[in-house]
């Protein structure tokens, strides 16, 4: 039996509650991956925050699919993935993945797999809001006069 949840949220992510929610008597390892907003510096400008949008409910279903893939490949007792939309300030979490497994190997591997798959198949997009405009990450389209490269 595997438990857990796959959610896309607008508010802040309670990382602590997600981690402790994965504790189970049949699992001896809980691996957590937290993606946070990193501030890149340009010439005289910097990223002020990130903003995420998603195509729902396709994005919700793709998160669940990743969970199914993980359950098919590894012996896991718990998989949770939570992704935030909207504004995420520097140093704040945008995505949290928690995997519990009887042993540490599958927990580490499955949590790594989850974040790589999110970046491949889940229709979520982020733009960097700079002091002088914004840029869609991955498309390099935006309103900045001095494009980042």
């Amino acid at each position, binding site marked *: 039996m595997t438990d857990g949840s796959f959610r896309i949220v607008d508010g802040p992510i309670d990382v602590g509650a997600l981690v402790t929610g994965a504790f189970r008597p049949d699992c001896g390892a809980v691996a957590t991956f937290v993606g946070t907003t990193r501030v890149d510096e340009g010439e005289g400008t910097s990223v002020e925050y990130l903003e*995420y949008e998603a*195509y729902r409910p396709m994005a919700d279903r793709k998160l669940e699919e990743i969970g199914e893939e993980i359950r098919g490949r590894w012996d896991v007792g718990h998989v949770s993935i939570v992704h935030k939309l909207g504004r995420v300030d520097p140093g704040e979490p945008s995505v949290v993945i928690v995997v519990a497994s009887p042993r540490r190997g599958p927990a580490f591997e499955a949590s790594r797999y989850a974040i790589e798959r*999110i*970046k491949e*198949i889940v229709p979520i*997009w982020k733009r960097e809001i700079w002091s002088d405009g914004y840029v*869609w990450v991955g*498309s390099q389209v935006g309103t900045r006069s001095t494009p980042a490269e």
Partner: protein
Amino acid sequence: MEQVKVLLFGAAADQAGTREAEFTANGVTLDELWSMLTLKYPALSPMRGTLAFAINGEYAKGEEMVNAGDEVAVLPPVSGG
């Protein structure tokens, strides 16, 4: 008359200047719908090579059929995480 609803996201919505469009179409391929879309929003054309598409919430290729009542999504390279 039943329409095909097209949703645009991220950079594609920026380039088109809209997040949603409707076309009168039935039994056309995704590639044919793309031609209708770029006729209306020419600024989308250069993005073609970077885009993925979904029909009714599932990834779809250019030769797949679009029918009236379907929802088509124009998806730039995803950048979640």
